[in-house]
């Protein structure tokens, strides 16, 4: 490496770090990205790649919708290997209570300009013949999409490099902040701005960040073209994904361009080991087969795990870290970082360059967490 001084040094070459690098470089800043592994090797390699609009909170909606539109604008530039496919999501309702949730979601999205369609039981079955009989219906969100995250991260990083960004791989950090990044081999990079984009490991590098690892499992099948057409997610997902106290599983399946099917999902706190937890896989596949019995006839070819970076209020941390004027965070994206990576990059770089962000940024500022602390 010729230079060790930059405008910005980003730690973490996952999809969030890659998107930030691309955005900084696009606006003419001199960027270096450091990762101990390869591009897109962390949660980015483990994720499902569902580009999904969510309505947990106004802030979550704003970020996911903004980012989804950025992906839509980018779709024609994405190489084939990114496998971007606007297959749509169907939120599946198992009972009347969940059907009420379908109607609530429909109205919420209609008020905010997101097209959706309520499916009754018959239309649901026609849309996805492999779902079991007896489900109540669902909500089709046609603009939701899927993509293959590690290739998307690689595309963003390569574009950043074409725009002048430098990439330092295989470099573990010994320290970060106060305008510098110290690598374990003794090399020091200095910059006015350091971005911690180390995902589930960000709190190890910046003590005090309230980000916890939330483990997830995924299973991928062999190729079964036309078995599944949309990303399907059970509406009970919302109940289970939110129970921070206990381990949970949910029916969440995704059709891949290759005809393969990704089967998820699980959420665990306090599980720090990468190994597959057999009882989680059993629970997850049982849940999936309750909705789609025919899944039991397919052969799975691989199982893996990954770590989401979870925050207490389920919103990411994007902006300055109080206490170190050089340090900015772009982490805490939990199960939505593939979706929200592009918007994260935009609003982070907007803050730093003094540009006007397209959505209000306050809900994502890291200072909100320290404020909550002060009140607690």
């Amino acid at each position, binding site marked *: 490496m010729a230079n060790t001084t930059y405008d910005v040094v980003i730690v973490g070459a996952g999809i969030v770090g890659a998107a930030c690098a691309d955005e900084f470089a696009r606006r003419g800043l001199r960027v270096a990205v450091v990762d101990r592994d390869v591009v897109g090797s962390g949660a980015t390699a483990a994720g499902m790649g569902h580009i999904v609009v969510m309505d947990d909170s106004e802030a979550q909606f704003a970020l996911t919708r903004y980012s989804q539109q950025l992906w839509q604008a980018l779709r024609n530039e994405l190489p084939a290997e990114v496998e971007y496919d606007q297959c749509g999501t169907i939120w599946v309702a198992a009972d009347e209570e969940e059907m009420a949730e379908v109607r609530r979601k429909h109205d919420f999205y209609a008020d905010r300009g997101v097209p959706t369609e309520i499916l009754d039981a018959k239309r649901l079955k026609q849309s996805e013949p492999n779902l079991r009989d007896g489900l109540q219906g669902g909500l089709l969100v046609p603009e939701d999409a899927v993509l293959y995250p590690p290739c998307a991260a690689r595309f963003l990083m390569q574009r950043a490099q074409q725009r002048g960004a430098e990439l330092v791989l295989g470099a573990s950090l010994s320290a970060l902040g106060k305008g510098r990044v110290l690598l374990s081999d003794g090399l020091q990079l200095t910059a006015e701005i350091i971005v911690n984009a180390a995902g589930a490991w960000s709190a190890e590098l910046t003590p005090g960040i309230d980000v916890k690892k939330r483990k997830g499992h995924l299973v991928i099948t*062999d*190729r*079964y*073209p036309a078995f599944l057409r949309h990303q399907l997610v059970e509406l009970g997902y919302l109940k289970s994904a939110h129970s921070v106290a206990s381990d949970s599983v949910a029916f969440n399946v995704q059709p891949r361009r*290759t005809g393969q099917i990704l089967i998820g999902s699980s959420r665990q706190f306090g599980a720090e080991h990468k190994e597959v937890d057999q009882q989680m896989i059993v629970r997850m596949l049982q849940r999936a087969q309750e909705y789609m019995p025919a899944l039991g006839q397919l*052969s799975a*070819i691989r199982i893996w795990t990954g770590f989401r970076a979870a925050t207490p209020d389920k919103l990411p941390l994007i902006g300055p870290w109080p206490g170190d004027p050089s340090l900015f965070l772009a982490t805490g994206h939990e199960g939505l970082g593939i979706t929200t990576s592009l918007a994260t990059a935009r609003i982070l770089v907007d803050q730093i360059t003094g540009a006007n962000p397209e959505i209000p940024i306050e809900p994502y500022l890291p200072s909100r967490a320290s404020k909550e602390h002060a009140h607690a």
Partner: protein
Amino acid sequence: MPDQVSLKVNGASISVPSGTTVAVAMALAGQLCRTSVTGEPRGPLCGMGICFECRVTINGIPHCRSCQSPCEPGMEVASET
């Protein structure tokens, strides 16, 4: 002469000595086992059930390893795309 077994490979009838694997029947019939995601032709590689390169659809069940499946009378075998 060993007993012969008749089966169908991609719609065409073929008769093979009993005990013949589907992989061999595919080869005798001059048919590919499958096509990879990138469109490349695929056929048996390890011949012992490990590599999964030789997958075919047998009697409507996709992804059967042809090297591990003996031919049976009336079997319908199809290449996979």
